[in-house]
């Protein structure tokens, strides 16, 4: 298989993470924000996989599976919340929810 320096893999992860963070900071639409969160999670998982591959151990993959599980549960709840949010505010703009009026 491919033999690539570990730092390249980690750099890719950091770049993806930064892009995800950028998206999170810039977008106002809650759907995009969720997508950005997914990008960041994926980047973190990538770092785990790279690290696991560097040591030839399955632990990194297991960590990734935990992230995957977490992401699945998170998205399920978050999207239900998005539906709720939309019904409440008739918009997906998170700034519309800046009052705690529920």
């Amino acid at each position, binding site marked *: 298989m491919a033999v690539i320096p570990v730092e390249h893999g980690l750099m890719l992860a950091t770049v993806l993470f930064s892009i995800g*963070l950028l998206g*999170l*900071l810039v977008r106002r639409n809650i759907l995009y*924000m969720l997508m950005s969160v997914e990008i960041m999670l994926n980047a973190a998982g990538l770092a785990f996989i790279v690290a696991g591959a560097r040591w030839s151990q399955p632990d990194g993959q297991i960590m990734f599976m935990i992230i995957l599980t977490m992401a699945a549960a998170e998205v399920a709840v978050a999207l239900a919340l998005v539906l709720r949010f939309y019904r409440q505010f008739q918009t997906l703009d*998170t*700034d519309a*929810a*800046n009052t*705690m009026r529920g």
Partner: protein
Amino acid sequence: MNFVNSLLWTIPALPLAGFITLALFGDRIARRSVSRIAVGTVSLSALLALVFAFRFVTAPPEGQAFQQALWSWIHVGSFSVDAALRLDSLSMVMVLVVTVIGALIHLYSTEYMADDESYTRFFAYLNLFVAAMLTLVLADNLLFLFLGWEGVGLCSFLLIGFWYEDPKNGRAAAKAFLVTRIGDVFMLIGMLLLFWHFGTLHIQTLLGAVNTEGHSWHLTLAALLLLGGAIGKSGQVPLQVWLPDAMAGPTPVSALIHAATMVTAGVYLIARMNPIFIHAPGIQHLVAVIGAVTLLIAGLCALAQRDIKRVLAYSTVSQIGYMFLALGAGAWSAAMFHFFTHAIFKALLFMAAGAIIVALHHEQDMFKMGGLRRRMPLVFWTYLIGSLSLAALPLVTAGFYSKDKILFEVFTSEHGKLLWAVGVAGAFITALYTFRMNFLVFFGTQKSEIHKGTGLAMALPLMLLAAGATVVGFFELPAVFGHFTLFSSFIEHTLPGTHGDHASHSLELMLMAVSTAAVFAGIAVAYFIWGSAAKKSSDVTKRPLSRLLASGMGFDWLYERAIVSPYSAGARANAADAVNALYTALVSGIEAIAFSLARTQSGRLRWYMAAIAFGAVVGILLVVYA
């Protein structure tokens, strides 16, 4: 035999049980049962006290005192206070007076208060008072004594303000409470001083240590502070102002608390702590001076009063002044003897006055009375006996023997001549105001209708006390009349002896003649002024001197101007609370910071994210470069 001795605790416990029963179940008990419980418990206590007195005489206990330790009350390090009782001859006199007169007044109250709607509450308070007073006199240590001391103060407050619907009564109660508190604070500090210096509050240990140590500035200071407590409780100058106002309470309360028992707690305290005063002669002399000044001032004030109860109140202050005079002159047993006789005849006078007041439908102004001699013969005769005893009519009244003993011993003490002269003047004034009162109330024309007769429950105590007011004087006869010293021999188990025994009989007779002359002069002047109907007038109060006297020598006015008003003004000025401003500023500063931080809680998700990202940047920076 020991079983009876071990019942000592029941003397205060019985009235306490009565109080608890009435307080908890009072609203479910019929009035008859209420009075039975109240009178019954106190009467049982009286009976027990008599049994103990009998045993004290026939089979004197070890150390001349019954003792009983109930339980360890407080035990912290070396500080240890037991709830312990001690009944010696001094306490015995007090216990007898408190229980017997207390029982009579309870009985009297069942009729006096019969129509009051707070009947149960009254008896509950009264029972609590008796329990607290007994705790005071039986206490083995100063802290336990102080418990009783404050307990009677509380009951006094509650009972003065018993008819609290009238704000005037509430104010009188608050005044009494606050003024006596001043004294109590002195006493508390004195107690702490004694504990700090001697390391104990147990009275006997303490007095033993005092006798060993002798003269020291600690003792002088402690004596001064205890004196402060005593004058507060006993209404001596300058803290006498609360007692006349205390007459706002029901008359039985005035008889029991503000004449016979509680107000003499100061006398008891000084007598109980006598070694301290003996070793602080300057303070002891001060006691005598205070007594002399008080008896004079209060007597003069009594002259100008219109309200019959206020006359009696000032008279009480004046008579306690005699007791202080005796204490200050070292005539310990004379003071206690006067306390003993005074308790009887003053209770008698108050109760008789109460009977008049009830009969006249709560009319207390003497100028609206008059001519009651024929309509209320029983009250008239008992009142007359009490008055004669108060005025110290020679030979047949108890008051004569006790007052005479005081005057004699004051005269024979060091620097006693001037004090004796004041005492004699006081005797003159006493006779004067006493008979002013008598002539105004019982002679002349009748001005008010009588609504109600005097029932048995009120008549019986009157008659018993009237008998007492003549008989008890013979317990102690001066040297010229056979030198019978039952009372002083009894009490000298506890108190130091007198020093006037060596005086010659001729001197004694001469002094007696002078005071007798003063008494008769007083009665005569009273008859001359108020005895004839034509000269009776009410405009006497309009003259400036009378007004001054009627207002209690202006003490209230002075305190109002000198203390209360400046204090209130200071309080008003400090309403904004200057000290608190610092803390308010601190609080509002923190609040401002909190609010400005709360503004960051904008609800804008992206700002939160940016903050987290910024935190990550800074955190990583710190980790990598530090």
